[in-house]
């Protein structure tokens, strides 16, 4: 196993998976919150825009989103997302992969936050309105803080799914864990079980703590009513 790890530079593949996960998590949290705000707003057009986004991205396979990001944005439209230097191709693919992961998972983050909003009694927003808070203040100080605290478990589930979904970006050649796995299978098909075991173990190590952490945090952060 050690030989596999060394020969295929497995640790940098793991690091790439971690980087993809962290950036995509941050991005999808921001974008997903924004889309949730659209869906909660009193303005019909914004609600419609939010729900259309969710419908489109939730129902499109991630592979399609990833490949489309590469082929449409870079290949066809020719939009440059990285500087033209020695790592130009790697940088481009890495950034487009994050873009695709963010776009896709934001839809799920939005729905997780909305489920958090549903844990809040309607009287909270009414009380906020009755003391004169505007819609924005109401969201910022009353609704979203309680929604996040009520959405820890579903948000954790999205994060775990996201961690594993980073494997899909092999489709555009980003050198993360599943990309390393593919090369191992190609060159060392004599130790297939070890290869699969190694990859499975890697993801268990990455996601198990997330599950435990969200379980603990959801109880710790739950709003007492």
């Amino acid at each position, binding site marked *: 196993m050690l030989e596999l790890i060394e020969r295929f530079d497995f640790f940098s593949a793991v690091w790439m998976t971690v980087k993809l996960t962290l950036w995509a998590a941050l991005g999808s949290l921001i974008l997903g919150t924004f889309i949730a705000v659209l869906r909660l707003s009193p303005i019909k057009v914004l609600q419609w825009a939010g729900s259309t986004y969710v419908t489109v991205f939730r129902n499109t396979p991630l592979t399609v989103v990833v490949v489309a990001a590469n082929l449409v944005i870079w290949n066809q439209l020719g939009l440059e997302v990285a500087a033209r230097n020695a790592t130009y191709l790697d940088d481009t693919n890495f950034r487009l992969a994050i873009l695709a992961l963010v776009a896709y998972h934001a839809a799920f983050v939005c729905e997780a936050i909305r489920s958090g909003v549903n844990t809040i009694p309607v*009287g909270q927003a009414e009380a906020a*309105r*009755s003391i*004169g808070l*505007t819609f924005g*203040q109401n969201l910022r*100080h009353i609704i979203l803080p309680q929604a996040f605290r009520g959405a820890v478990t579903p948000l954790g589930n999205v994060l775990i799914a996201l961690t594993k979904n980073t494997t899909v970006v092999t489709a555009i050649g980003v050198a993360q864990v599943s990309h390393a796995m593919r090369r191992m299978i190609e060159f060392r098909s004599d130790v297939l079980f070890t290869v699969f075991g190694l990859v499975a173990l890697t993801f268990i190590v990455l996601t198990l703590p997330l599950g435990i952490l969200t379980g603990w945090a959801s109880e710790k952060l739950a709003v007492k009513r």
Partner: protein
Amino acid sequence: MTETGIAESGTAPGEPLVVLKGVNKHFGDLHVLKDIDLTVHQGEVVVVIGPSGSGKSTLCRTINRLETFESGSITIGGVELPEEGKALAQLRADVGMVFQSFNLFHHKTILENVTMGPVKVRKMKPEDAKKLATELLERVGVGHQANKYPAQLSGGQQQRVAIARSLAMRPSVMLFDEPTSALDPEMVNEVLDVMVQLAKAGMTMIVVTHEMGFARKAGDRVVFMSEGSIVEDNTPEEFFTNPQSNRAKDFLGKILTH
């Protein structure tokens, strides 16, 4: 600020403050408010009573537009209720509202519940807001609970905090939507006492309640509603001893026999 947080509104005592004219509202096919005309004067305590489903809570919620209405007009201090947006938020800041289910912000401490409005809406300095909140919490008898969270307080205490939260905005009128209906019986009086105190201090109040004792003790007028209409509008004395309509007689007969 005059002593305890009662607002000085532009209107003089006895002037019309809240005026409803021909207000109509439907929930689907149900006509919940039928041509409501009601004038509440500065400093007046108007108690709204009536059977369940008579529209009294809806009436109360319509006055600060937590419910919309289809026709008619509502003015507060001569200003027409804005439809939405910042203007409506500003108007709501001047109209206190106390809910049946308290609706304290569950993720904020008692003190933060009371300072939120003054700081965010009135742009008061945090230390001034804290001082005001502490005073008001003392006044409603929960000063020592300031750093707890709502879930740690009894219903009666939570409702008194809710009253303090409204008072902190220095409202020109306060709406009470069945403020004691969700309380255990032994906690009803602690809330009513605070309300009586407020009434005596000259606050303009519209109170939807089933507490007939409060209506007699603190009410200037009793408005009796049935099936979406105002059926009687009289002094408590007259209403309780000499109701004019059959519906009011029937209602009083049912609740006063025990």
